[in-house]
């Protein structure tokens, strides 16, 4: 009774005003930080740091068209050579120039002056736009337009599909002026306007993807609100009294203010795609508070003194609550091991929030309970009233479950679990890394964006690119590295090697291609003039020729504005892992063949969607198991501290790891690969799952009587009491998470919701079966100890009239009290500490 925990509890409750003022002060401080809170997806922060591909991407962000929106107009009833389709293209082209933040110099379609064809004239070259100043309307005008297209190799490759039914409009935006939401709304409006029975119009590109994500994030806030409401309704139904509802609500709101205010003060943007985890924390906060309240009312029923009850509850609950919360927070914080900036920020934000469940759950909750009026339904809350049908059924279910874990059935259960383990291991080992989706994994496969990407991929070289960068050693070289013969020859060698290799890309493009075309045109137009002489003079001449009268931005997809760095773009048919592996292997071989280091430049592999997808997969592959290993270590230490036994650590670690294995096997069986979602879910799942083990094991310690050891009875009692609480906790969290899977149009969030639901359920079932089973099989000595911080009881009789402290209110006195107090200080009136 005089442990440090009870002394702290006594001090806190004795100084309720001071403690309350500290809470108010801290809440005001963090609330002031709320104005700096920013919910924003920073896409580059979703990429792993320090990966060579990501470093290449960040060094050359302009390659791979990250700021370009691509609109495809598809005529469903024929080719594009008709006035209606061309009119649509003209209108879209002109109207996209009105988009906010668009770079007026970088709009390209068959209707712009930049799409040209060339004809050799006696004195030189006549370069004219494919389309004149108006849309071709008459058959003669359309025929002339078609003739011009046929003379423009680039237009045929990159602006008009091979079957001539589709054409593209590309618009690039100025990063500093780009408001993704605004641009998305505007261009999507154009796309919808131009769609009709005869024409499909699709929009793709990174700004479009960002726009869709923002659009769904707005929807996400609604889901967040709905889910929060569902949690509150669940709370109201469960507690059915004001104090019982207000306490978790106030504690959770305070905790939320602290969490958001903290990142606000740090000026660290919150990643909206991960907002499901704060909701999980709200659910955790609710369940902690509910369990705390129940225990408080239980003690209050004995003592009839709100202040003393709050003090005792705090003392009793402190250790197990803190341990449980620490494992939750550890799971979240260890996610920061993955070197992904968004994850690091997330770990800081949610890890801090999770840790703040300690003061709000362990200190604020009893303070609130001690000041809020007592409910009238205390008896029902603490289970002394008549139990409802549901409670009876749950109890019966848990009783049956406990039957499986001891006595003769335990052998069969062990055998079944061994089979499950082996089968799960075998299946889990088959799991793939990554979840390639044509388009973006953030969205559903049949989403409008991913459909657009698929359609564009079907008609054009597409959007699955691998970029090999030729990086200038001196970015201010007066010779302009991209215009040097060796640079151009290296581009050509790379393209040649890759095109001749196995599984060649659909298309390749480099600055060299433009130079060769320029060389042909300015040399008279005959194809024999396409090859460039391999000297700087000739290459420079061709570069000057194609750039005369053009903005350097017109070539920004192949060389930067200053013509120092350049890229070789390779287009692949899809981004399935096999394709990615082959593409990277071929690219590596080609880079090895041409050599990495050259006099003026270095060849860097690579960037583009293919490379960045691989970078993400590499990180998942490397850190998935590493994070879990560290989490196991943390749990080992925590449980050793709690139970002073390594056997206890094993008893706790086996179920969470088995749960993880089953989760991985389920994913593998469902065709879901390991990705950054599953890394997070596994870590959070272990953190939460271990709670169940701790609660159950502690209850077993509580219930175990070394004088009359009956493991079967102990297990059954623990399962039917704490097991029920575990089921309640899991249910509360499922209510918080499950709706995301059904409501979210963001696949990322839905996937995470699904995986979290799976992991919670698996962890719950496995904890309820495996922990008691292991106790039964091992029969560890630590459960008989009475000095465990998580299993310490309190003799409430010391506080009753007989004990000389206070009176229990008659209406709350339990019929069993008399019997329990008669047992004596060691047993009577003790309050089991394990909570959920």
């Amino acid at each position, binding site marked *: 009774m005089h442990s440090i925990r009870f002394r702290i509890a006594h001090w806190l409750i004795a100084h309720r005003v001071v403690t309350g003022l500290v809470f108010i002060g801290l809440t005001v401080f963090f609330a002031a930080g709320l104005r700096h809170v920013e919910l924003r997806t920073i896409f580059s922060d979703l990429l792993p740091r320090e990966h060579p591909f990501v470093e290449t991407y960040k060094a050359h962000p302009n390659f791979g068209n990250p700021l370009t929106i691509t609109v495809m107009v598809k005529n469903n009833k024929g080719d594009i050579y008709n006035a209606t389709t061309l009119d649509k293209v003209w209108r879209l082209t*002109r109207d996209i*120039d*009105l988009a*906010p933040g668009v*770079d*007026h*110099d970088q*709009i390209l379609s068959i*209707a*712009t*002056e930049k799409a040209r064809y060339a004809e050799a*004239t006696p*004195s*030189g*070259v*006549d*370069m*004219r*736009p494919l389309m004149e*100043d*108006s849309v071709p309307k008459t058959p003669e005008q359309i025929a002339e337009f078609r003739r011009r297209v046929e003379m423009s190799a680039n237009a045929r490759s990159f602006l008009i599909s091979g079957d001539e039914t589709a054409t593209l409009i590309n618009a690039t935006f*100025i990063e*500093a*002026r780009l408001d993704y939401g605004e641009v998305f709304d505007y261009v999507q409006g154009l796309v919808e306007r131009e769609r009709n029975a005869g024409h499909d119009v699709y929009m793709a590109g990174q700004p479009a993807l960002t726009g869709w994500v923002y659009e769904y994030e707005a929807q996400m806030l609604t889901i967040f609100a709905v889910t929060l409401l569902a949690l509150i309704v669940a709370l109201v139904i469960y507690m059915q009294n004001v104090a019982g509802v207000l306490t978790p609500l106030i504690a959770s709101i305070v905790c939320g203010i602290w969490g958001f205010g903290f990142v606000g003060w740090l000026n660290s943007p919150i990643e909206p795609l991960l907002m499901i985890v704060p909701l999980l924390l709200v659910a955790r906060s609710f369940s902690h508070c509910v369990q705390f309240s129940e225990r408080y009312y239980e003690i209050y029923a004995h003592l009839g003194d709100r202040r003393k009850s709050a003090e005792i509850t705090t003392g009793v609950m402190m250790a197990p609550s803190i341990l449980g919360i620490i494992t939750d927070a550890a799971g979240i914080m260890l996610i920061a091991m993955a070197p992904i900036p968004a994850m690091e920020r997330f770990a800081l934000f949610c890890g801090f929030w999770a840790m703040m469940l300690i003061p709000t759950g362990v200190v604020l909750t009893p303070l609130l309970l001690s000041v809020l009026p007592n409910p009238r339904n205390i008896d029902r809350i603490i289970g002394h009233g008549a139990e409802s049908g549901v409670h009876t059924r749950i109890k019966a279910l848990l009783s049956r479950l406990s039957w499986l874990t001891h006595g003769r059935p335990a052998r069969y259960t062990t055998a079944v679990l061994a089979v499950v383990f082996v089968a799960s291991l075998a299946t889990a080992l088959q799991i793939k890394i990554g979840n390639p989706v044509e388009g973006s994994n953030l969205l559903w496969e049949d989403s409008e964006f991913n459909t657009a990407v698929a359609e564009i991929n079907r008609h054009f070289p597409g959007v699955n690119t691998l970029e090999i960068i030729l990086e200038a050693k001196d970015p*201010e070289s*007066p*010779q*302009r590295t991209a*215009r040097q013969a060796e640079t151009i020859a290296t581009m050509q060698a790379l393209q040649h090697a890759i095109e001749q290799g196995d599984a060649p890309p659909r298309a390749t493009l480099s600055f060299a291609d433009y130079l060769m075309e320029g060389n042909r045109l*300015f*040399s008279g137009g005959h194809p024999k003039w396409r090859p460039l002489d391999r000297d700087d*003079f*000739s290459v*420079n*001449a*061709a*570069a*000057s*020729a194609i*750039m*005369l*009268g*053009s*903005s*350097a931005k017109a070539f920004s997809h192949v060389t930067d*504005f*200053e*013509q120092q760095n350049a890229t070789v773009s390779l287009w692949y048919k899809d981004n399935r892992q096999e394709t990615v592996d082959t593409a990277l292997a071929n690219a590596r071989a080609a880079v090895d063949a041409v050599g990495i280091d050259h006099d003026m430049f270095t060849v860097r592999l690579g960037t583009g969607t293919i490379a960045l997808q691989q970078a993400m997969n590499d990180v998942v592959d490397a850190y998935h198991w590493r994070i879990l290993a560290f989490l196991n270590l943390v749990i080992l230490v925590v449980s050793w501290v709690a139970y002073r036994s390594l056997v206890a650590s094993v008893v706790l670690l086996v179920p969470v790891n088995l749960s993880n294995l089953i989760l991985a096997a389920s994913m593998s069986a469902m065709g879901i690969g390991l990705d950054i979602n599953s890394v997070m879910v596994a870590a959070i799942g272990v953190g939460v799952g271990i709670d169940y083990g701790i609660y159950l094991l502690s209850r077993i310690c509580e219930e175990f009587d070394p004088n009359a050891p009956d493991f079967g009875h102990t297990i059954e009692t623990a399962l039917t009491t704490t097991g029920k609480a575990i089921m309640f906790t899991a249910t509360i969290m499922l209510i918080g998470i499950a709706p995301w899977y059904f409501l979210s149009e963001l696949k990322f969030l839905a996937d995470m919701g699904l995986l979290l639901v799976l992991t919670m359920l698996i962890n719950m079932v496995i904890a309820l079966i495996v922990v008691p089973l292991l106790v039964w099989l091992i029969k560890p000595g630590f459960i008989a100890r009475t000095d465990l911080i998580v299993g310490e009881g309190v003799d409430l009789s010391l506080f009753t009239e007989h004990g000389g402290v206070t009176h229990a209110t008659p209406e709350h006195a339990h019929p069993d009290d008399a019997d329990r107090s008669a047992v004596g200080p060691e047993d009577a009136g003790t309050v089991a500490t394990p909570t959920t």
Partner: protein
Amino acid sequence: MRIKKYDFNYSRRVFLEKGLMGAAAAGVLAPLWPEIGRAADITKAYPDELLSIEAYTKGKVKPGDVITADNVDIVKDLLDPIAYQQVKTMGRRINIVETTRDVTKLFPYEYLEATLRNQGQGTIGADGNVWTKGGEPWIGGNPFPEPEDGLQAMANVTLSWGRHNFSMYAIKDWEISPGGDISYAYDFVWAELNTTARADGTIWNGKKDLLRYQSVWFTAPNDTKGSSFLNTWEYDQRKFPALLGYLPAFRRTREFPTNQRFEPLVPGITFFLSDAWSSGDPLLTWGNYKIVERKPMLGAVSNNWTGGRNENWERELHGGPKGQTFHETYMELCPECLVVEAEPTSYPRAPVGKKRVWIDVRNGMFVAYVTYDRRGEIWKSFEPGFSQYVDGDAVFLDNGHPAWSWNYVLCHDFQANRMTRFIQARECTGGYKSGYDDSDDVYNKYLTVQAINRLGAT
């Protein structure tokens, strides 16, 4: 000492009234051009508050002061919106000088003579072009010293860009990236020869159906050296100029679409052909001209020639991320400017929505120019600096008189935040020197297809 007979807001009210009336003569206290014709002095036409920046700002800014981010808000209404942002946010500074009252310092000598001589002769014909009352092509000087509308105001700028019958500018150009680095640097020569609208009243070589020949050839760096362009302008301002480019390495000319006016000549440069002189396109290929306002402005119209301080007329730099984005510039209070707007009506694919030009009524030359995109957002500015070529004791003569010409240009693509800055130098790479003397068969030397081929070859 002049007696202040008018309250401080008198000129503001006058400008407002003139704006409401539409056409109105320049000058607040008295019509401007009679004063110029009488004594070439504008003092009697404007009150103190328009002749002195000190009076205008109630003593807060005076000649010799420097406008910086700290005090630019005092003169915010006197700057175009991009110049204001440059000072406010990019570290630009502007030196303030006295207002020029002697208008002979705002013109080439012969051009002012022609303007005064031909006053009242200019008229807009039924075809929209500028003709003399006798139906002949314009005969020199500003055809409309007192413009009645936006079209007339822009005709003054368009018909004779450089205000010499022939000009050859040796230009040094630097392209500044958003990070403040030099992305590109070019030396090139710009030559323009008017066949009509000449200050000497003649028609050059009988070419009355043309307005001018104009060529550009690059002399440095080596990868661009020899690239050249030839523009031939019809007198009929409804027609697009023919544009030819020459590629020395291929020894071939390239014909550009005549309506391709919204592209830079070479990579890196921010301004389009359309932006040159605020009137880079034929007058009547733009439309909906209107005077939207009359107001005083700060304009770089004097003290900008650096010939006394720098042999090659180069300028000091400052501002931007690397301290090299802006030229050192000198501006004075221009008492009355017309604010003219126009739209690119003959360019169905123009990315520009409209241009706004501030024109100094003293010489009819623009002091600021801004384009807006089709959303109405500011896009680019093209800010010129002019001066009589006198700097201390140094004088550069043009036919016996102190020369007058432009000195620098700052062209800022405000949306992409790229800056083109160039100067008229004494000499650029290749040994070409700035000058205005057309006595040496300049046409055959610089302004024919053969000439640009030859210039490219050298």
